[in-house]
């Protein structure tokens, strides 16, 4: 029998969520006004956001730009080798300072009135300053720095006033998997980017679960990757999810003409797949010998842009680098043979959720009132702590809650 919708559909996210913890109001994906609230409470709030990795800017003068919500950032490596994150805005009249996505500079010059900033953010020249306002002091007009912290080279920023320290925010279960994912020490070498624009809300993009992988991705089945027995899925109360899964060496079942592509040359074959999903929107993956950090930007309620950055390790020999390039250029991401379906799903999740009712989580649900913290590798319940954290940060009440 089909189910019925009783209330008028408005497309607006309800202020009160159902008492059942496995029901997410679908309107949260398509509500344009809600996105403005998310910018304030999450992206500009008391939360750490991943904006890059040191290996993207390895040399003094290297920089990259990034957007946190609508806030433009400039990430620069100074002559002192320190990485700093600035607002990408001239301290004079607010002109966007750097327009390139990345590059190398001796200094940053605003073309409007030729104000000049050092790589470390100091204002070093400002033509005509003798006629500036009486209280003008050049040393007060350095670039505005954003609070940042790093873990094995991953650059985190926050604009919140009450954000907990990064180590506390990461918690205990994230660092072990994350450090292995980063080659043990984060000494990475950038191989390049695949950049993609998804017609999807950022929450749909980051709602991939442990249940879908062997179901959606036919290639996982064809390659006999069905999870194994030594894997796990763990979550933190503030919305991070960590996966480790076994990838058995493939038996050539005739599906693959050139099996060298899916060879595993790394050192930990028992756990060929590791994933860290940070709240709110960053995913990092090590799959076979691919090291892939996905820098996500929530552009609007219906567009999410993701820069898939791929890395080698600094200690790799030339053969290993070539192997990583080959795997990285073919398997994951928006052009990858084993998981490109995700891209199609992000769009369909977004379209399909512009309908009444709830996104219903089922696989692994054992209680309708308790947020599960102990789940299996292929459960979808691992996403519920993240949804609960989201609900609390956004201030949505539950039915029956005061």
């Amino acid at each position, binding site marked *: 029998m089909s189910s019925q919708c009783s209330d008028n559909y408005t497309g607006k996210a309800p202020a009160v969520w159902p008492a059942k913890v496995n029901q997410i109001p679908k309107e949260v994906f398509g509500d344009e006004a809600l996105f403005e609230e998310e910018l304030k409470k999450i992206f500009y709030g008391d939360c750490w956001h991943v904006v890059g990795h040191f290996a993207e800017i390895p040399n003094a003068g290297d920089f990259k730009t990034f957007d946190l919500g609508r806030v433009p950032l400039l990430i620069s490596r100074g002559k002192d080798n320190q990485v700093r994150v600035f607002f990408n805005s001239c301290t004079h009249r607010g002109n966007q300072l750097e327009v390139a996505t990345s590059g190398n500079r001796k200094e940053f010059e605003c073309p409007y009135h030729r104000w000049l900033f050092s790589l470390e953010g100091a204002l070093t020249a400002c033509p005509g300053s003798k006629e500036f306002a009486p209280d003008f002091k050049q040393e007060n007009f350095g670039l505005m720095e954003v609070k940042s912290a790093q873990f094995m080279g991953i650059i985190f920023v926050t604009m919140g006033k009450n954000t907990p320290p990064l180590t506390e925010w990461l918690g205990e279960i994230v660092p072990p998997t994350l450090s292995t994912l980063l080659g043990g020490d984060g000494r990475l070498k950038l191989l390049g980017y695949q*950049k993609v624009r998804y017609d999807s809300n950022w929450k749909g993009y980051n709602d991939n679960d442990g249940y879908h992988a062997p179901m959606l991705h036919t290639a996982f089945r064809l390659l006999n990757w069905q999870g194994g027995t030594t894997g796990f899925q763990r979550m933190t109360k503030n919305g991070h999810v960590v996966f480790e899964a076994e990838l058995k060496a493939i038996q050539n079942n005739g599906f693959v003409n050139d099996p060298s592509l899916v060879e595993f040359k790394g050192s930990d074959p028992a756990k060929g797949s590791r994933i860290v999903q940070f709240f709110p929107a960053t995913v990092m993956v090590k799959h076979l010998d691919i090291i892939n950090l996905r820098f996500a930007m929530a552009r609007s309620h219906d567009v999410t842009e993701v820069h898939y950055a791929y890395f080698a390790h600094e200690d790799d020999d030339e053969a290993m680098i070539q192997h990583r390039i080959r795997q990285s*250029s073919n398997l994951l991401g928006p052009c990858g043979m084993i998981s490109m379906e995700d891209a*199609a799903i992000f769009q369909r999740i977004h379209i399909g959720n512009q309908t009444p009712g709830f996104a219903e989580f089922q696989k692994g649900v054992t209680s309708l009132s308790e947020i599960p913290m102990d789940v299996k590798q292929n459960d979808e319940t691992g996403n519920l702590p993240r949804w609960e954290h989201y609900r609390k940060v956004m201030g949505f009440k539950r039915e029956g809650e005061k």
Partner: protein
Amino acid sequence: MSSSSLLSSQSAISHKDKVAALAPDNFTWHGYSALETQWRVERLLSRYVACIDDDALEHWPEFFVAEGCRYEIITRENVERGMPLALVFCNSQGMLVDRIVSLREANIYPQRWYRHIVSNVLIQAVAEDHLEVHSHYVVLQTRRNGQTSIFSAGKYKDRIVFQNGELKFAEKRVVGDTHSIDTLLVSPI
């Protein structure tokens, strides 16, 4: 920190290298005049894009040499920064076949039509055993809602050889100006 051998071997392109050499007006290649060679190259390119646009992808690997072929779709952004990562990278005939088997058998994606427009075909260099050919491409994409948009614009950089009376790609490097992919890239370009 110093850059690696990997990156320095493909360092950023300097301005003086940007104007590529051009083949002379008159040459002979495997018995063909310059004009005949130009025509054969253009026919190869037209047949190649027709194969993709007409969804005859099972025949796509046949446009490449059987041994030691190389096919790559890479963004101009990565190339200009000296970064080797590609969107698609195949260096064996088996990998070409695997791409097609994967999109037919394994991958799930919304049906889209490609329409390639290829122009500005220039034979840049003529050697005994191969031609270097550059051309421009645009791929128009029509989604299921009937709307057509530009999916990718860029340049083909091809190494073409003469094998058993036919022209084949020994190497096809698709360098895309477009580096923001619209959702996903399934079919070859």
